[in-house]
């Protein structure tokens, strides 16, 4: 997606998400046209809010550090007034429950938009998914190639084949009881020895 499409989506009030991309590249382009703030990662939330207000209004960090997170959030919104702000950060998957509340609150404002990126899908917390739904994934194809697998699970067919095979072996073996008992007993005995060694000796 090129810059025109990104601007179009921002103009339509959408948040944008990239998979395995550094949003700093977007930041470099967008800062010419919008008020943009970039962080490499969204945490810690207080420091991010302090930096943002400091950048927008020029308040000293010493003063801002004394304020609580809720006060900082309110101050940021007040300072923005109706100016459009784009917050860009990588590592969306690192969001915590607490920071998520703040970002969701900021997201509820019409003039604040987010452009983020994530790299690890497995570490998403359940709450993060709700916030994630407000984003449009830009490089969806790339994400699908890496994260969705084209496979057919034939577990039950394999189970059935093994079972039928074992049935025939048993039928054949059972014609000689001594052979059957030797094989099963021998295998069972070997497993007992192995299990005992594993239990007593461990793996390392």
């Amino acid at each position, binding site marked *: 997606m090129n810059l025109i499409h990104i601007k179009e989506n921002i103009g339509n009030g959408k948040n944008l998400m990239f998979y395995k991309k550094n949003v700093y590249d977007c930041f470099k382009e967008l800062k010419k046209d919008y008020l943009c703030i970039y962080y490499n990662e969204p945490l810690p939330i207080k420091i991010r809010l302090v930096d943002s207000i400091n950048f927008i209004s020029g308040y000293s960090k010493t003063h801002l550090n004394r304020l609580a997170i809720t006060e900082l959030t309110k101050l940021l919104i007040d300072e923005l007034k109706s100016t459009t702000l784009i917050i860009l950060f990588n590592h969306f998957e690192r969001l915590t429950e607490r920071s998520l509340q703040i970002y969701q609150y900021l997201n509820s404002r019409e003039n604040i938009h987010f452009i983020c990126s994530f790299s690890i899908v497995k570490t998403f917390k359940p709450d993060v998914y709700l916030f994630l739904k407000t984003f449009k994934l830009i490089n969806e194809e790339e994400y699908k190639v890496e994260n969705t697998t084209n*496979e057919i699970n034939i577990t039950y067919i394999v189970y059935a084949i093994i079972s039928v095979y074992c049935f025939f072996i048993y039928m054949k073996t059972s014609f000689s009881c001594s052979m059957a008992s030797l094989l099963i007993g021998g295998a069972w005995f070997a497993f007992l020895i192995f299990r005992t060694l594993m239990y007593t000796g461990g793996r390392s």
Partner: protein
Amino acid sequence: MREYTHIAGAILIFLTFAYLINFSNLLIGIFFAGWISVFPDIIDKLTGKHRGIGHSIFWLIPFTIIGFWDLPIAVAIIIGFLSHIFLDILTTHGCPLLYPLQDTDFVCFNRKRRIKTGTNQEKAAFIFILLLLVPVLLFTTNIGSFWGNSEEQNLVFAASQDTQNSSNNDVVKNNFNLNFELDQGVNKKITVKKVSENETTILVDDI
């Protein structure tokens, strides 16, 4: 999976199959099954794409054609190949059975439970196969008979069928009907005695 697991798996499956169908050429079969079990990986190394054309089920067509020339070798080759496919299906990435036509991987189990190549999971699978292989190998190849009780002897009686030679009226004995009821998996020492002549001993390896 690694080569050693494939070879052990192929030999185990071949031996059990040979036992099922009373396959006689065990050594040749073991050799071909063991060798062909690494064939898919060799082909894929040559083509440069792992789990590609070498793991396709369509290899069964040329292997079946070998059967018109030599059936036992073809059986061993097919079993060796299928054992490789079967073991690879148990791994994380599965096996693209219909490769040139379809790129879909055929897999088994939940993703977390699949065997990852080269890990302790695979080593455990190898040990499992080995533990099954040793007793099967001992008894299907008759090596186990060394532990058999050689003192035990089964008695057998031969009943003669006397036939009349019409030309010179001499009585000759031929066509002995021998009925055996012996333990399987042991060498059978059968002694045939002819009255007041030399004693003949026949050693029957297996029936």
